[in-house]
């Protein structure tokens, strides 16, 4: 699933167990990925700043179906940004929960000054590094990507994680150029979705407060 892949890219589950991306970015990226899953399953359509449901049949996966049910219950909310903000509130818990249930992750929690901090460790190394490796290889060798990987690549870029994936600075420029080309050829709903995520991450920088 797209959101699982995004989680594994944005979280260092094979090393420190800590996030590679700031928590707000992960939450928004995962929210975008959850919507992206519904787009890939042809349940919702994203056009510009708006989205609407095109098919309410469940996709038979509890996290995605819960998001789908919420979308179905509030059809008057059509703003992508509203749904990103709404899903971002629980996206980390839900997606990590999905990976925990599948036995792909283990969670370690510790309290630090009253704030609970989680570390996540992968149980299967190759499964955990596969999404990032896939992107790195495809972007580095300018190979075509599946729609799901295109969505992943643009979401990763929208959250400014591209440099983390492309860890070889020499190849970055060519890979980035290829990514730009990819974005132009991407299905329009996924492209609009990733732009909304990019804007949401940017706005979160401008209104940051502690």
């Amino acid at each position, binding site marked *: 699933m797209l959101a699982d892949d995004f989680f594994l890219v944005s979280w260092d589950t094979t090393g420190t167990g800590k996030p590679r991306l700031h928590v707000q*970015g992960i939450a928004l990226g995962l929210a975008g990925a959850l919507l992206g899953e519904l787009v890939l399953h042809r349940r919702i359509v994203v056009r510009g700043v708006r989205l609407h449901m095109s098919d309410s049949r469940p996709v038979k996966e509890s996290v995605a179906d819960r998001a789908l049910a919420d979308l179905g219950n509030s059809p008057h909310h059509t703003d992508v940004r509203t749904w990103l903000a709404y899903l971002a509130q629980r996206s980390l818990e839900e997606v990590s929960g999905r990976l925990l249930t599948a036995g792909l992750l283990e969670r370690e929690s510790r309290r630090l000054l009253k704030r609970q901090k989680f570390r996540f460790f992968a149980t299967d190394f190759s499964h955990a590094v596969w999404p990032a490796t896939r992107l790195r290889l495809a972007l580095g060798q300018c190979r075509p990507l599946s729609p799901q990987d295109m969505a992943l690549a643009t979401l990763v870029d929208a959250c400014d994680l591209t440099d983390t994936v492309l860890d070889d600075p020499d190849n970055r420029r060519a890979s*980035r150029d290829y990514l730009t080309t990819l974005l132009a050829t991407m299905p329009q709903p996924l492209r609009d979705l990733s732009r909304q995520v990019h*804007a949401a*991450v*940017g706005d979160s920088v401008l*209104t940051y407060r502690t």
Partner: protein
Amino acid sequence: MTRTARTGTVPDPVAGALAADRLGAPTVVYFVLSAAAPLTVVAGVVTTGYAVTGITGLPIAFLVVGAVLSVFAIGYVAMARHMANAGAFYTYVTRGLGRPAGIAAAWVALIAYNALQVGLYGALGAAAAPVLERWLGLAPAWWVISLVAWALVAVLGVMRVDVNGRLLAVLLTAEVAVILVFDLADLMNPAASGLSFAALSPSALFVPGVGALLVLATLGFVGFESSVVFSEESRAPRRTVPIATYASVAIVAVVYALSSWAMTVATGPDSIVATARRDQADTVFVLAEAHLGSVVVDIARVLFVTSVFAAMVSFHNTTARYFFALGRERVLPAVFGRTRARSGAPQAGSIAQSALGLVVIVVYAVLGLDPLVQLFFYGGSFGGFGVLLLVFVTSLAIIVFFAREPSGEALSRRVVAPVPAAIALAVMVWLALDNFATLLGVPEGDPLAWVLPVVYGVAALLGVVWALVLRSGQPAVYAAVGMGAKAATAQDTA
């Protein structure tokens, strides 16, 4: 919360969930005022202002500027409601007066906010030296203290460690409390000449050099414009944002007018200039020491240091975000629009701001310039004048915008308030330009008095030229000017 969580009679779970952590007016006021650093203004700007300009009308100037900004705010918050990206001044200018004017305003803003931030490095030495000497027996050069602070600000900037909101609220409350205690002590112990209202009299404004006072007063209000940034996050934007804006302006006007007046009462209006020239940034503390215990004064001195430091961090972040917004629009190179993955900080903007700060500190140290007057006060005056220019141009943008798109706003918000506000601001800008030499305390005709304002003129001109270059060369970038982070939705990213 339940009020906004419902549409009609059916509870709306999405709106309810999103409203749960939204901000009320008091919180927004705290966010706005936290950047204001009241003790920095009262102990630093006001006293140095008396010393440099040699005129005493600052208290009434705070009230007059507060009144003008309140009237300006009526149109400002009204226009904010009709903007997809209600952020900094340049977004209003873009919407009202077009993209070339918008980019010109953005350049002016970048310079002004950078000047305000860098200027604070000059104040820290004056603020921290007495504390360090008394408690640690150290007497380092001002630039040593500033470089330590600079390094801290630079690291906190890229780590995206903002001073915690709660801590800031506590500091702000303590600062205002100390200021009010000082004011009370000053007012209860007037100079031999008695309780004088001279500095509060409107006639105090009809003196040569009044434009200098208006710039300094404007400087005290910098940050009031940021209330609109929180419109998407506030509980009831139509009410919360206006209330928070008016409240912030009113609080600033009253606290600063009262404090600057109380100083003149304590010394006598005739002696405040001489006293401020002798004691400089120590003035308020020396005055307070005469009547209050040394404990209170010691606490106040520490708060002065924390106040300057908090302001440094705050202005650093504001400036870095300015770079970031312009990077996202591609008005600046795209690298400014990227965040640092681990922290989410606007990395390139933060580093650029820090680099500028370092250069300025080093240049001032090498040339042996005066940190308090030539760095802090000039930086503040120069930056304050830039903000005044921005407010003025924004006031024009508001009028033009509502003339074109009434947007269902009442006549009072579209015309009746904005027009007088723009006229008053035009007069302020004109007086400021006319009295720039007084503002800097240099003789009439000194090159500095025209070079500094010309910097903004050149920046604005370059902004317009850059806009025209973008229009012909990169129409997609040009189209997204003024959209801030939302520019991503209008153009191809990556």
